[in-house]
């Protein structure tokens, strides 16, 4: 396969960067913004769990697992679109 032209390469990297920024924003939300409101969220109780406690103990963790797999598959799609996926 021929190498990417500079324009294609930039388009590829723009798409990759956009995915990166979206994931980083979500990462900040689940790692810092939601925990910052733990005191308020703790007023809500679900199955005995205060919600603020639950988010930091389990909720954000579930998000991390999901987002890591999502990143892998979304980036693969971008790779295939530009024909730069490995064989």
């Amino acid at each position: 396969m021929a190498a990417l032209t500079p324009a294609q390469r930039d388009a590829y990297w723009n798409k990759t960067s956009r995915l990166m920024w979206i994931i980083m924003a979500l990462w900040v939300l689940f790692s810092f913004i939601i925990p910052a409101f733990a005191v308020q969220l703790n007023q809500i109780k679900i199955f005995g769990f205060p919600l603020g406690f639950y988010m930091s103990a389990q909720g954000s963790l579930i998000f991390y697992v999901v987002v890591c797999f999502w990143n892998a598959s979304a980036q693969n799609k971008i790779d295939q679109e530009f024909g730069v996926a490995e064989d």
Partner: protein
Amino acid sequence: MANQTSKSFVDNLGKIYGVYAGGFIGFVILLAILEQMGVPNRVIGYCFVFLTIGVYAYIGVISRTSEISEYYVAGRVVPPFFNGMATGADWMSAASFISMAGGLYLGGYGALGYVLGWTGGYVLVGVLLAPYLRKFGQFTVPDFLGVRYEGNTARLCGVVVLFCASFTYIVAQTFGIGIITSRFLDIPFEVAIFVGLLGILVCSMLGGMRAVTWTQVAQYIILIIAYLIPVVWLSIKLFGNPFPELAYGQVLEQIGELEKKLGILKPHAAAYVDAKGQFSWVEFNNFWALTLTLMIGTASLPHILMRYFTTPNVKDARTSVGWSIFFIFLLYFTAPAYAAFAKLEVYTNVIGQNIADLPRWVQNWSQVGGLLTIKDGNGDGILQLSEFIINQDIIVLSMPEIAGLPYVISGLVAAGGLAAALSTADGLLLAIANALSHDVYYKLIDPHASTMRRLVVARVLLVVVAVIGAAVAGTRPAGIIQMVAWAFSLAAAGLFAPLVLGIWWKRTTAAGAIAGMVIGFGVCVYYLVGTRYFGMTEWFGIRNISSALFGLPLAFLVTWIVSLMTAAPSKEMQEFVDSIRVPKGELHWVAGQAHE
């Protein structure tokens, strides 16, 4: 196994490790039967410690190799699923296994910063670093710095940071190994450390990364079984629910009621409160500072990053990050449940008992270096909460006994803790020895060294570093979790900026990266050492476990400013960065740079 990892071995990994896991469970059941037949506890403890170490040693010996790429990157054949397991074991150390639930027990919500911090960093690893470092395809993290920042100064800075962070980390692991072997083999702590050291060396010395990889998969299986069984057991016993992660909502409610009864001012689930139960900005700031430090540290620690050098390709490196966090998640979302169950057991079965009637485990644990003290302060013969002082490093290990589970479960937990500490120690030791042998010896001192000689140097350095680590651990410098957090701070302040900017910002220059590393790391060390040893006042009340909070932004700032002040990297270098960003195709090496 032949000298090179055979295809049939890789194809049959599922079967091999399936049989192995089944065998381990059978072994536990056998010991449980022996216990019922009256075999003494001490023998059971010995069986667990020696049999598991024996298995690791066996894997270590059959995986021995004299191939450079097998020794450094396990031949790059590790499938993502199994690399995820190996990373899980590499990652989860004595701090996760032994201390974290203990920290949650003592600290309540405040300690959830560890849970968040030690998981969320994988998002950064997967998005920002792992696939690109895999594409780069060399042997060590300093390798990347040396190539991207054209020269040995950057490489050497990388080695210094790597050494300081990994060494601090390894001392903590050896300390954990000492606690376990001393308790379960009934030998003095200082001797136990060196017994544990042998366990570390047999896995890593002959086979390097290849042996460590396949041992770590085996260790993951043991550590996760050992962590889940006692808390699942308790959850079934108390609530008839085999999922402690769901059941402990009720435990939290019961703890809340007991706290009121016992007059505890700081509720378990309350966020950002001080010892009196009042909201505190210092606690709030320390929480996010710790979370940030640990996450960035995750994405900077070389022994983790180098695990992604071992997958067959870039795509697998990304998927592998997903499996890593999944396998880590299994333990981390259980840890807060573990802590809650332990707290409930202590509040209901230990506090308020006659001190004379306390079971034997109390006495056994009191003998391990002052980790548990019981002092009848008011002399009424009844144990009050304030008279029961338990160290966070033994909560997990002693919980089966506190809850009155059979001793075989205690032995199982000890084997798990040992697996966690050994696997991380192995990964760290390899990271240090590889950096010294590959980056310092081969790249700087003797570029013409033969393969044979390079491997000999690597092995000698491995032993030397391990012995020094054990000797330092023998002096008990600090608690496990503190030492580990320092390691994360050091790595985060020194390595994160040059690695991330080197990939994501082409304009980063060698001078910028080096200045950023020196200043970021320097400020972090200054704060850590100053507050720890010289009574320096904390800045904004931030504890030194989050020392990277000051060094990290400075590293970015300095790298940015100095890069803009110096000439842009050569066109060749920019093409090299471009080639790293794309999974397919050859790398565009800058002329004159040696690579493998």
